[in-house]
C-alpha cells in the first residue's frame, strides 16, 4: 500500500538522498553526501548524536530515542532502580542489569558504527551492490513505511516495559491491602488506571500483564511455526503415506472451530503458562504446515531441481536451500499476524477465567471479574483492552509492513 502511494508523487524520487532510487548513483551519492569526518567520533559517546551529525538521521534517531528512554526510566524511577539493584528477587536483578547492558550496548554500537562510517571510504560500487541486495532493499522499504516503523517502535517499547516491569510498576500488582478503602477507585494520579475490586493498582497490573501477553504471543508463534515447518517439510518431502496422514490431521484440526478446541484443551488440562503456550502453538501450526508443504511440492516440480539431480547434487540439499529464501518472507509475515492472534486468544481465554489464572495478572484476566463490576467501573476493562488492541494492531501493521517490504513484485511493466 505504502509503496504504491509513493508512486503517486513522482517528484520525490527526483530528490536524491531522501529517497534513493534503485538506479545508478542513488546509494553511492548517499554515501558520499555523508562526508566522513573522524573528528565527529567523540560525539558517538552520546548514542545517535554522531549519526545525526553525519546525516544518518534514521539510525541516529533510533539510537537516541532508546538511550533516552532507558535513561528516563532510571532517572524517574531512581529509588526503584537502586533498590532493585540490591534486591534478591530475580525479576529486579534482570531488569536492572538489562538497563545497564542495553545502555552500554547503545554506546558501544554507536561508537563502532561511527568509527566504521568515518574511517573507511566505502567503495562506491560495493555500496551500490550492497544497497541492491534484496535484504537491504527490504529494510529500506520497511524503513520508508512510517506506519510499520511506528508499529515496530510500539512493540519494542512494550517488550521493554515487560522486561522492566518491576522498575516501572509503582505498586505491587498482587498486593491486597485494605480493599474497602482502595476498592474501585477511578483513574487518578495515584492510580493511573484506577483500582479493581481488591484495591489493586491496575496500572501496575497492566505493566506486569504485558509480560504474560507478550511472552505467550511470541512463544506460541515460535511453537506453531516450528511445528508447522517440521510437519510441512516432512509431508512435502517424503510424500506418500506420511503426507496423507499428516494432511488428514491438518484437516481435522482445521474443521474444529479454533476457539472451541482451545477452550476444551485449556479447560480440560487446566493449563499453566507453559501448557497454554504449547496448546496455542498446537492449534495454530496448520497454516504454516500447508504452506511449507505446498512450497516443497512446487519446488520438486521445478526444472532446476531436476537439473541438480541430473548432475548428481543431492536433491534434498537443493530443495531446502531454495525453500528457505522462498518461504522465509511469507512465513515471517504470517508469524507476525499470528502473534496478534495468539495474544488475542490468550486474552479471550483468560477473560473466560480458564487461561492465565489470578493472582498472576494478564491483560485478559484483568477483565475477568464479575460482569456487573466491569460494566459499572468502566476503567477496569478500558485500559487493558486498549493495551491489548494496540499491541495486536501493532503486530498487524508490522505484518503489513513486512509484506510490502518483502513483496517481490516491484515494477509494473506489463503494458510497457
Amino acid at each position: 500500500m505504502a509503496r504504491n502511494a509513493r508512486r503517486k508523487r513522482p517528484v520525490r524520487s527526483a530528490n536524491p538522498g531522501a529517497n534513493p532510487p534503485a538506479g545508478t548513483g542513488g546509494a553511492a551519492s548517499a554515501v558520499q553526501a555523508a562526508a566522513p569526518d573522524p573528528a565527529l567520533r567523540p560525539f558517538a559517546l552520546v548514542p545517535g548524536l554522531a549519526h545525526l551529525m553525519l546525516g544518518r538521521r534514521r539510525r541516529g534517531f533510533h539510537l537516541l530515542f532508546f538511550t533516552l528512554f532507558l535513561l528516563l526510566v532510571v532517572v524517574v524511577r531512581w529509588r526503584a532502580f537502586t533498590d532493585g539493584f540490591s534486591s534478591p528477587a530475580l525479576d529486579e536483578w534482570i531488569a536492572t542489569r538489562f538497563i545497564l547492558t542495553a545502555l552500554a550496548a547503545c554506546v558501544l554500537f554507536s561508537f563502532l558504527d561511527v568509527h566504521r562510517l568515518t574511517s573507511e571510504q566505502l567503495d562506491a560500487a560495493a555500496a551500490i551492490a550492497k544497497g541492491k541486495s534484496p535484504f537491504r532493499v527490504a529494510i529500506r522499504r520497511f524503513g520508508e513505511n512510517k506506519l510499520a516503523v511506528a508499529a515496530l517502535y510500539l512493540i519494542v517499547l512494550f517488550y521493554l516495559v515487560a522486561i522492566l516491569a518491576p522498575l516501572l510498576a509503582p505498586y505491587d500488582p498482587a498486593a491486597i491491602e485494605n480493599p474497602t478503602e482502595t476498592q474501585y477507585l477511578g483513574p487518578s494520579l495515584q492510580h493511573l488506571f484506577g483500582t479493581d475490586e481488591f484495591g489493586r493498582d491496575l496500572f501496575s497490573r497492566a505493566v506486569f500483564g504485558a509480560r504474560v501477553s507478550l511472552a505467550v504471543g511470541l512463544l506460541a508463534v515460535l511453537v506453531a511455526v516450528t511445528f508447522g515447518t517440521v510437519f510441512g517439510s516432512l509431508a512435502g518431502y517424503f510424500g506418500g503415506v506420511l503426507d496423507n496422514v499428516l494432511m488428514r490431521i491438518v484437516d481435522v484440526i482445521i474443521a474444529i472451530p479454533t476457539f472451541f478446541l482451545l477452550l476444551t484443551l485449556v479447560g480440560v488440562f487446566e493449563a499453566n503458562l507453559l501448557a497454554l503456550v504449547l496448546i496455542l502453538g498446537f492449534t495454530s501450526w496448520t497454516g504454516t504446515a500447508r504452506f511449507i508443504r505446498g512450497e516443497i511440492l512446487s519446488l520438486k516440480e521445478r526444472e532446476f531441481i531436476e537439473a541438480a539431480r541430473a548432475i548428481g547434487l543431492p536433491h534434498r540439499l537443493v530443495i531446502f536451500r531454495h525453500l528457505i529464501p522462498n518461504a522465509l518472507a511469507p512465513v515471517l509475515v504470517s508469524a507476525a499476524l499470528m502473534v496478534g492472534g495468539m495474544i488475542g486468544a490468550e486474552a479471550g481465554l483468560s477473560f473466560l477465567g480458564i487461561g492465565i489464572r489470578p493472582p498472576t495478572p494478564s491483560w485478559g484476566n484483568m477483565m475477568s471479574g464479575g460482569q456487573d463490576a466491569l460494566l459499572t467501573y468502566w476503567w477496569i476493562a478500558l485500559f487493558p483492552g486498549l493495551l491489548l488492541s494496540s499491541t495486536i494492531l501493532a503486530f498487524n501493521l508490522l505484518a503489513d509492513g513486512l509484506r510490502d517490504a518483502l513483496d517481490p513484485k516491484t515494477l509494473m511493466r506489463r503494458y510497457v
Partner: protein
Amino acid sequence: MARFFAKRILQAVPLLFGIATLTFFIIHLAPGDPMDMYLEPRMQRQMDPEVIELIRQKYGLDQPVHVQYVKWLGNLAQGDLGESFRHRRPVASLIAERVPYTLQLAILALLFDALVGIALGIFSAVKQYSLVDKGVTVGSLVIYSVPGFWLALMLVIVFSVNLGWFPTSQTRSLDYEFLSLAGKIGDRLWHLVLPVFVLGVAQAAGTARYMRNRLLEVLSEEYVVAARARGLRERTVILKHALRNAMIPILTIYGMSLPFLLGGAVLIEKVFAWPGLGLLGVEAVGGRDYPVIMATMMMGAVLVILGNLMADVTYAIVDPRISLDGKKRTA
C-alpha cells in the same frame, strides 16, 4: 447434484471420525479419573465405593481404553451423545436447543459482514488513495485488531449502561411472553443488535480489506481494460465485469471464516449471556461436563463442514469454470 452431495457426505465421514477420535483422546488424556466423565467428582466422594464400582462397570470404565473408545464411537454413530451430568438431560436435546441461537447470531453476522464489508471494499478499491480509501484501510485494520469481547464490553458500557439504547444481555425482555408476534420478533432483533454488530464488524473489516485487494487485482486484468475499451459505463465495468470475478474467492473465504465466526461467538455469547453453542461450551468446560464438551466440539465441526459444503456449491454456481466436483476446467 445428488451424486455430488452423496460424495461429499461420504468424504465427511472420515473427517468426523477423526474429530471424534481427537475429542475422545483429549478427554481421556485429561488428568484425573475417567470416571469423572460420567459422574461429578463431588458426588463420587459422597457415595459408597461399591456403588461407584457398579457404575464403573455399567459404563464400561473397568475395561481398557480401546474398548471404551469403540463403544463410544458406536454410540456416537447411533446419534447417542450421552447425558449431561450438569443438566441431567441427553446432550443431543441440549445441543438442539442451543444451535438455533448460535445460528441466528452467525447468519446475521455473516449478512452484516457481506453487506458492509463488500460495499466498503468496493468503494475503497474504486476510490483508491482517496480519503475514504485510507479511512477504510486503516479503520478496518484497527477494527480487525480489537478483541471482540472487549469491543462488546465497551459498547455495552456506552450504549446499554449509559445510554440505555440496547439491552445489556440475554435474548429477550422480561415481558417477552406478553408481546405480539411482531413484538416478539422486534424484541429478539433488539437483543441481537449489539452481539451481531460486534461479531459482524470484525468479519466485515477482514472482508473489506480482502475485497479491496482482490478488486484492485481484477481491475488491472485485461478483460476489465477490454470492457472499458468497448465503451461500457464505469459502473457496468465495476459492478458487472470486475465484481463477479472478484467475488469468487470471497466465497471460499466465507466458507473458511465459519470456524472463526463460531469461535468468536464463544466470547460474544459469554459477554451477552447469549445461550448458544459457545456459551454451552464455556459452561461445560467450567463445570467439567465432559459429554457436553465433546458434543459441542463435534457440533462445531459439523457446522464447519456444512459451511464449507455450502461455499463449494455457491462457488460452482458463480464460477462457470468450476464444476461441482471441484475441478477447474480450462481450454
